[in-house]
């Protein structure tokens, strides 16, 4: 009993955590670089989920291949939003506080617009499809294959983005913008380009998370709101702007949720999650990985 429960929690929590980390990574990157708390982040997730859903249903496109399309669709949308809205607000804001406030309100409005446009376009019905639902056994514990695929895909995406951030020149510039924005500008980093890049990367990550989620769950135009909350908590726990912090806090949250549901009591899941949040804020006010 105990070893099987241990392996189940170990793998089940990791699968959930990797998904959470993918959802939160994009939000964290966007906020870290631009100070834009994109509360419409979940709507890019929703867009990715619908793109994958329709590609699968209408053309039989493999959900993993559809990641390319969902990423492209959200990139185009964010490009339009950046050019038409965010660039203007960033340009005219005289302080970080003003930028944060104005973009926060704008993102709320965008979230509302996207949700309701999706209701009109796709209807509010739950939609879904069955993909890789067969069971596979890991350490004697059965798991649905689609969950394992999602976990592996999330790990690969997170690793690639981490490597990009850590080892590429652009990634270094992005990190510089997070930790020392004024200094970064002084050494010649093009801030506008970095803002745009972080917003684009963030929304692509969100759309990919949505595409992966559509393999496992029914989707609705409101699915993004559920994940936004998780992303926000993971971002705060990991440290605002800390990419690696976002990934690790996502995994911690996945374990917290799974262990509470499986071992303690499912009704306490939200409570445990927010107690973890409060404890971390008390002990490390800037998050686990923010220096």
């Amino acid at each position, binding site marked *: 009993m105990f070893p099987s429960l241990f392996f189940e929690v170990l793998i089940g929590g990791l699968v*959930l955590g990797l*998904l959470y980390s993918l959802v939160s990574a994009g939000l964290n990157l966007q906020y870290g670089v631009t100070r834009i708390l994109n509360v419409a982040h979940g709507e890019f997730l929703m867009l990715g989920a619908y793109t994958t859903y329709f590609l699968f249903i209408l053309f039989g496109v493999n959900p993993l291949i559809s990641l390319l399309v969902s990423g492209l669709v959200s990139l185009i949308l964010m490009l339009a939003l950046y050019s038409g809205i965010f660039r203007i607000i960033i340009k005219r804001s005289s302080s970080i506080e003003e930028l944060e406030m104005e973009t926060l309100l704008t993102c709320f409005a965008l979230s509302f617009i996207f*949700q309701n446009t999706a209701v009109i376009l796709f209807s509010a019905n*739950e939609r879904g499809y*069955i993909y890789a639902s067969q069971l596979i056994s890991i350490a004697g514990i059965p798991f649905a294959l689609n969950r394992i695929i999602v976990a592996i895909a999330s790990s690969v995406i997170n690793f690639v983005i981490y490597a990009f951030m850590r080892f590429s020149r652009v990634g270094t510039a992005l990190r510089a913008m997070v930790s020392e924005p004024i200094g970064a500008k002084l050494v010649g980093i093009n801030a506008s380009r970095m803002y745009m890049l972080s917003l684009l990367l963030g929304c692509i990550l969100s759309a990919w998370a949505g595409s992966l989620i559509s393999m496992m769950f*029914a989707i609705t135009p409101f699915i993004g709101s559920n994940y936004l909350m998780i992303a926000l908590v993971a971002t705060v726990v990991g440290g605002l702007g800390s990419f690696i912090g976002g990934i690790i806090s996502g995994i911690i949250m996945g374990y917290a949720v799974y262990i509470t*549901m499986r071992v303690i009591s*499912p*009704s306490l899941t939200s409570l445990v999650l927010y107690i973890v949040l409060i404890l971390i804020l008390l002990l490390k006010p800037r998050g686990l990985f923010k220096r």
Partner: protein
Amino acid sequence: MRKTNKGVTKLQVAIIAVVIVIVVIAGIAYYFYHLPATVTTPPPKDKVVFGVVCAQTGVYAGLTQMFTLPYYQWVVEEQNAKGGLYIPEYGKRLPIELKIYDDGSDVETNLRLTEKAIVEDKVDFLFAPSGAEICFAATSVYEKYRVPVVLMTIEVDDLGRAIRKGDIRYSFPVYCASEWYAPHLVNFLKFTGSKRVGIIYPQIRAGIDWAKDFYSEIKASGVAEIVVYEAYPYPTEDLSPLIRKMMEAKVDAAIACAEGPDSILFVRQSIELGFYPPVIMSGPGCEVPAIDLPIFGTEALKGFMNFNEYQGIGYSVFRQNPGLWKWCEEHKRRLGALPFTNALLPYLGYKALLQAIEEHGLNREKVRDALASETFKIDVYGFEVLFRFRPGEMGAEILNVKTGCFSQWQGAEMPEIVWPPEGASAPWIPWRPQKG
């Protein structure tokens, strides 16, 4: 000659005053009592306006799109095709117009807009909003302004209690709440020989109501042992820990008092994890052909049950009745899929409201009384259905069609009704692994 005192004593003055006051009051009362009824001509009217304050946006927009607004539009279109609603005061038919407001899935907004619709916009009648919480809150406004309303998406125990106590008189929910189903569940478990029951539920009002009523009824009956009884946060991304708990506890009857998305998640993860207890059932969401068939298909769902079927009609019963089947086909034409098994009930409820208005005019009080007491003969594409609201109780009744409360997917494009036996359209089959 003796001089007499002609003066009036104070007592006499008081008596005279009292008599005068009494006479005056009696006179006024008599006048008003026997005041001839003033013959007033109703103000000119060229249409009957129904207000629909419901969610066009927000979380309940889906309910509006699928379950409320299309039905309002359906009955209104049918009525207008007949030339409109006959209004006795005017002696003619008037077209019905729907005046639609968006409450944004917000209770406060709904209450404000409902008052606006009644007081400022002076709508004649109202159709109900979407979502149990909003419907429940709106019932207070209907009481305040005495507007009879037929409600669909509300299955709240508290409403049933308020209706029984007579506190709510103007709200006519077509469905029943969980307390009504609980005794049926016990009998069903007895029938299937289930001994180990698992109940999971989301931490929202509907889920808690369902689970609490099921739990206490099963416990009190002693028919089975409840080996898993767990709540989960709503919304949720993963029910596998709970399903695994039920697998470990070897439950032979799994009940998820779930709602919409988590109902679907429960079906999906049960299949994925190979969880096949003989009895498995869920709440709203897993019985809707429009949602479930595109995701799962008919085969994978075979054996899965739904307990949210107050006065549900099984696929075979619909199929065998030309009028009812024609109605199903019209449903498919309008909404893109066959109906869920108890979808006829709200349709009949709205039809009954229109019929009551045709009979009693725009007098809301009389319309209310008619809804509360009359049995309506409603033509459903050539088949006459006898329909009434249960007097002093929650829920309506179809009197001349076989109906039941638990449905089950059995490979057709709509579920069958399997319980109670007198309402069953097909015998119950155990849940079993899908082929392949």
